C-alpha cells in the first residue's frame, strides 16, 4: 500500500485532504438546499427521497470508477488516479490525460497506462498535465454561470411550454448519445478492452435496465409507494449489472461478441 513514491504517506495525506474538501462542499450545499426546500414547502419525505435515491444510485457507478483507478494504478499508483477521479475527473478524460502526459514525458508514442512510471520527474509532470488539463471549467463557471442561468430563466418565464420541451429534449439528447453508443459505439483504439465496444454486453445492459425499470414503474402504479420510486432506478441498475456479470461469467463466448470494436 505504501510501496513507492506514488503511494507514499504524503500522497495519502493529499487524498485525505481532497476527500474532506469535496465532502465538506457537498454537505454545505446540501444543508443550504434542505433549509430552502423546507421554506418552499417541499415535504421532508421528498427531500429524504432525493438523498436516499441518489445514494443508492451512486453505488454501482462508484465501484466502476474505482475499477478505473485500478486500471490506471499500474502506471500511476493508486493515489493519483484516486485523487483525479474524486475531483473534476471523468473516466473518459483521465485515461486520455494520463496517456498524453506519459507519451509527452517519455517521448515514446507507444507508451500507455500499462507502462509503470518509475521516474519521479515524469510522475510529477503527469500530475501537472492531468491537473492543468481539467481546470478550465472551474475558471469559466464563476464568470459565466450566473449569466447562463439568468438567460435560461428569462426564456423560461416568457414561454414556459417551449422551455419545458427544450429541457426534456436536452435530457433526451444526452440519453440518446449513451444509448447510441451502447448500440453502435466503437471500442477504444488506444486502450482496447473486452466490452468497451457496442456488443452483446452493452445491449444486455440497456435492455435489462430498461425492462426492470418499466417493471418497477408498473408495480408502483398499483402500490403507489414513495420508497419504490426512490429505489426503482438503483435496483434496476443493480439487477441489470447482475445479469451482465452472470452472462459474462457463464457464457463469455456469446457475451463478449462485439459488433463495434
Amino acid at each position: 500500500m505504501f510501496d513507492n513514491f506514488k503511494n507514499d504517506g504524503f500522497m495519502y495525506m493529499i487524498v485525505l485532504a481532497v476527500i474532506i474538501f469535496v465532502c465538506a462542499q457537498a454537505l454545505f450545499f446540501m444543508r443550504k438546499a434542505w433549509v430552502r426546500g423546507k421554506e418552499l414547502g417541499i415535504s421532508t419525505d421528498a427531500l429524504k427521497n432525493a438523498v436516499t435515491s441518489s445514494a443508492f444510485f451512486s453505488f454501482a457507478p462508484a465501484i466502476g470508477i474505482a475499477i478505473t483507478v485500478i486500471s490506471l494504478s499500474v502506471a500511476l499508483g493508486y493515489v493519483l488516479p484516486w485523487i483525479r477521479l474524486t475531483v473534476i475527473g471523468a473516466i473518459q478524460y483521465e485515461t486520455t490525460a494520463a496517456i498524453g502526459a506519459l507519451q509527452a514525458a517519455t517521448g515514446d508514442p507507444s507508451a500507455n497506462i500499462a507502462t509503470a512510471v518509475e521516474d519521479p520527474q515524469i510522475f510529477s509532470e503527469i500530475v501537472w498535465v492531468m491537473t492543468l488539463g481539467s481546470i478550465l471549467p472551474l475558471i469559466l463557471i464563476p464568470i459565466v454561470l450566473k449569466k447562463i442561468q439568468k438567460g435560461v430563466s428569462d426564456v423560461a418565464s416568457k414561454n414556459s411550454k417551449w422551455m419545458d420541451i427544450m429541457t426534456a429534449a436536452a435530457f433526451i439528447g444526452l440519453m440518446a448519445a449513451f444509448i447510441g453508443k451502447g448500440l453502435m459505439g466503437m471500442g477504444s483504439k488506444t486502450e482496447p478492452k473486452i466490452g468497451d465496444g457496442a456488443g452483446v454486453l452493452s445491449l444486455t445492459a440497456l435492455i435489462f435496465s430498461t425492462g426492470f425499470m418499466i417493471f418497477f414503474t408498473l408495480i408502483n402504479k398499483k402500490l403507489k409507494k414513495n420508497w419504490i420510486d426512490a429505489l426503482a432506478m438503483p435496483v434496476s441498475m443493480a439487477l441489470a449489472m447482475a445479469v451482465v456479470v452472470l452472462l459474462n461469467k457463464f457464457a463469455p463466448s456469446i457475451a463478449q461478441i462485439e459488433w463495434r470494436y
Partner: protein
Amino acid sequence: MKKTYMDKVHTWGRIWCIASLLFFLSIPVAVSLHLDITPRMEIIGKGLAALLIFFITGIIEVVAYSPMLGAGGTYLSFVSGNIMNLKMPCAINAMENAKVKANTEEGEVITTIAISSSIVVTTIVIAITVVAFALNPSFSELMASDTFAPAFQQVTYTIFGSLAAGYFVKHWKISIFPIAAVTLLLVFVDPGIGVLIPVGVVLSMLGAHVLYKLKKV
C-alpha cells in the same frame, strides 16, 4: 436589496469554485516540492496539447449542462467531476421522483440535494474500494479480471437504460429522432462521447423545436 436564494447560491458557488481551483492547483505544486522536482514546461505543454479537445468540450459542457444541473448542481458537479455518467442522471432521476421541473427553485433544491448526496456516497465508496484494492491485490485482480471488468464497462448503459425507460415513454415523440440520428451517425463515425453528447443534445433540441413549431408536441 435583499439577496434571493439563487443570488446566494452563486455567491457560495463562486467562493467554493475559486477555493477548489486554488486547492487543486496546489496539488501538483505540493507533489513537485515533495519529490524535489522542477517540472519541464515543454513536457507539460506537449501533454496539454494532447488534451486540446477536452478544453473545447470543457467549454461546451459548461454552457450545455448548467441549465440541466441547476446552479448549485453545476458548482458541485464541476468540482467533483463524473458529470455525465453520474451527477446528471442523479439530478434527472431526483427531479422525476420529486415531480419538479428543471429551471425552477424547487428543481434547484432537489438537484442540489441529489448531487450532494451522490458526491458524498461516491467519494466514500471509491475510498473504501481503492483501500480494499490496495490492501488486497487478489481482490484487485479479481475485479480487473475478464469476468468482472467487462461487466463494469456497462455501468453507464444500465444508468441510461433505466433512466430512459420513464423518459422515453413520456416524451416518445421527441425521442425517436435523436436516438435514430445519433445511432446512424455512429455507423459512420464515432467521435467519442465528449463530442457525441453535445451533438445529441443539439439534434434533439432541433428536432423538438421543429415538432413544437408544427404543433405536434
